[in-house]
C-alpha cells in the first residue's frame, strides 16, 4: 500500500478541479470537497425554484453569481437531472426562424461556449457543425429564409447543396436514388453537442458551493397564494414560505402552475431517443431530417445518438415503444444505409411541455411572485444558460429582460404567437 503524505495543509479538501489539484490529490489523498451538501429543509427561503433541471439550476447559479442572491432553495421531486435535462440528446444550435428566437438561443450558445471555465467543470462542449436536411422544395425555401434571418443576426448559417453535404458527411446517401433525395441543407457551423449530465452537475456544484440549498426527493404538492400573491409551497417534507416561486418543471409544469391557479397553453408529450453501441468516430456533424422525423449525432464515446419527433399522443408516461425504434431505424437507414449492422444499446423517453407556437413561456404570471420558465418542448436544453441568466435578472430586479419579453404568457391572449415551428419541431 502506498502511504499518503499527510500534513495538516494537505488534508484540506480540494475544491477546484485542475490538473495541478488532481496531481496533488493523487499524492496527498486529501479528500475532494463534497459536491452536493445535504441540508435541512428550512421553513422559509427568499426564492424557491421548483425543478432541478438545467433551467432551475442555471437560474440558481446566475442568481448567486450575478446578483449575490443565495437564500434560495432548488426543490426536485426526484434527483437533479432526472427530467428532460438528463434525457435529451444535447444538441446546441441557434439557427432558429424568428429574430427573437435567434437572438435568444445565440446568447445561450455564447454562455455554453464559456461554461466549462465558468463552472470549473468539463461540460464537454463540442462544436460539430449542424445540418438540417431539406428533401423537398418547401423545406429548402424555409432553410433559405432561416439562413437570411440568421445572417442578419450575425449567426453563421448558410444553405449548402448535396455535394457539400457529402463532403461533410461522407456516409450519407446523397444520391438521387434515395426514397427522399436530399436537395440541400441548412448548414450551421457553430452548432454542436455537449455532455448534458455534466451541465446539470456543473451548475449544481457551483450553486451548492455558494450556499444555495438543493433538496432532492422533495416534491411540491401545493402552492399557497394569498391576495393574488404567492406565499410559499407545500412539499412532502413540510411547508416552505417564499417571496418568489419559480416554476422550472418542463413536462410537469402545467401541474405546478395549476397549483397556483395559473393555466397555461401546454400539453405534455413523451419524446424518445436511442443510442447505439460505440464505433470509431466517423460522423462529425449533427444531422437532422425533419421530413424523415430523425436526427443523428456521434458522441465523444463513439455511440450514435438518435432522436425523433414527439410521440403521436400526449402522455406523462416515460415508457418507450417498439414502434418508435422500428420507425427510427428505418429512417436512419434511409440516410445512412451502411449503419444496417449497428446494434442499439438502449432507448428511453422524456417529457416535453409543448406549446402551440413551439416557443417557451417565460416571465411573470397573473399571480404576483409566481414566475414561470416553461414550454421547453423538445428544444429547451440549449436554452438553459440564457434562461437562467434572464430569469435570475427578473427575480433580482423585478423587471423582465428584453431578451425574454417576446416569450411572455400574455402573448396567448394578445395574439402575439411566435411561429417557431419551422425551426423547432424535429430539429431540437
Amino acid at each position, binding site marked *: 500500500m502506498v502511504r499518503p503524505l499527510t500534513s495538516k495543509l494537505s488534508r484540506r479538501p480540494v475544491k477546484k478541479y485542475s490538473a495541478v489539484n488532481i496531481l496533488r490529490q493523487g499524492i496527498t489523498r486529501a479528500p475532494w470537497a463534497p459536491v452536493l451538501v445535504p441540508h435541512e429543509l428550512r421553513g422559509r427561503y427568499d426564492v424557491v425554484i421548483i425543478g432541478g433541471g438545467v433551467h432551475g439550476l442555471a437560474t440558481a447559479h446566475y442568481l448567486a453569481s450575478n446578483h449575490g442572491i443565495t437564500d434560495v432553495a432548488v426543490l426536485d421531486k426526484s434527483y437533479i437531472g432526472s427530467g428532460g435535462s438528463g434525457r435529451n440528446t444535447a444538441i446546441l444550435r441557434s439557427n432558429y426562424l424568428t429574430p427573437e428566437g435567434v437572438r435568444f438561443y445565440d446568447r445561450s450558445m455564447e454562455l455554453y461556449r464559456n461554461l466549462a471555465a465558468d463552472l470549473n467543470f468539463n461540460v464537454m462542449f463540442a462544436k460539430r457543425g449542424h445540418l438540417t436536411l431539406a428533401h423537398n422544395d418547401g423545406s429548402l425555401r424555409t432553410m433559405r429564409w432561416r439562413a437570411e434571418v440568421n445572417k442578419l443576426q450575425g449567426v453563421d448559417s448558410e444553405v449548402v447543396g448535396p455535394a457539400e453535404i457529402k463532403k461533410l458527411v461522407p456516409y450519407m446517401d446523397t444520391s438521387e436514388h434515395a426514397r427522399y433525395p436530399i436537395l440541400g441543407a441548412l448548414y450551421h457551423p457553430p452548432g454542436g453537442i455537449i455532455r448534458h449530465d455534466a451541465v446539470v452537475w456543473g451548475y449544481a456544484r457551483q450553486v451548492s458551493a455558494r450556499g444555495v440549498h438543493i433538496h432532492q426527493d422533495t416534491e411540491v404538492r401545493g402552492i399557497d397564494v394569498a391576495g393574488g400573491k404567492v406565499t410559499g409551497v407545500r412539499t412532502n417534507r413540510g411547508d416552505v414560505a417564499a417571496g418568489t416561486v419559480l416554476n422550472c418543471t418542463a413536462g410537469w409544469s402545467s401541474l405546478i402552475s395549476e397549483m397556483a391557479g395559473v393555466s397555461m397553453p401546454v400539453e405534455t*408529450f413523451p419524446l424518445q431517443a436511442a443510442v447505439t453501441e460505440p464505433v470509431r468516430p466517423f460522423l462529425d456533424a449533427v444531422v437532422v431530417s425533419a421530413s424523415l422525423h430523425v436526427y443523428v449525432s456521434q458522441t465523444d464515446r463513439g455511440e450514435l445518438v438518435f432522436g425523433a419527433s414527439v410521440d403521436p399522443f400526449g402522455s406523462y*408516461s416515460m415508457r418507450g415503444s417498439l414502434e418508435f425504434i422500428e420507425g427510427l431505424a428505418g429512417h436512419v437507414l434511409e440516410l445512412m444505409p451502411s449503419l444496417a449492422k449497428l446494434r442499439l444499446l438502449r432507448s428511453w423517453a422524456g417529457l416535453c411541455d409543448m406549446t402551440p407556437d413551439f416557443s417557451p413561456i417565460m416571465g411573470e404570471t397573473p399571480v404576483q411572485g409566481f414566475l414561470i420558465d416553461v414550454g421547453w418542448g423538445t428544444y429547451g436544453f440549449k436554452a438553459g444558460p440564457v434562461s437562467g441568466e434572464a430569469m435570475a435578472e427578473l427575480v433580482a430586479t423585478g423587471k423582465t429582460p428584453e431578451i425574454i419579453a417576446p416569450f411572455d404568457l400574455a402573448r396567448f391572449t394578445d395574439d402575439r404567437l411566435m411561429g417557431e415551428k419551422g425551426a423547432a419541431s424535429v430539429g431540437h
Partner: protein
Amino acid sequence: MMLLPCPWCGPRNVTEFAYRGENIARPDPNTADKATWRDYLYYRSNRAGWEREGWFHRAGCRQFFSIERNRTTNETRGVGTPDGAGDAAHSGDSR
C-alpha cells in the same frame, strides 16, 4: 405495445389510431368572443390522470370515437363511444 379499444373493431394497436386530443366542445365561431376562441385553440387541462379524449381509427374503420385514458399510465377504461371528433388543433406534431 399499447392497445386502444375501438368501439367498432375492438382492441387494436395504438399505432393504428390518430390522436385528436382532449374532448372539448367547439364554441360556435359566430357567437364566441375572442377569449373563448383562444381558450378553445390553445388551452388544455393536461391532467396527469383520467381524461376523455378523441381518437380516429386511421388505419382501421376510419371512425371517430372517444374514450377515457389515464394520461399517466396510458390505461384505458370503459368502452369507446362513437363521438369524439375531438380536437386536432393542439396535438404536438401533425404527422
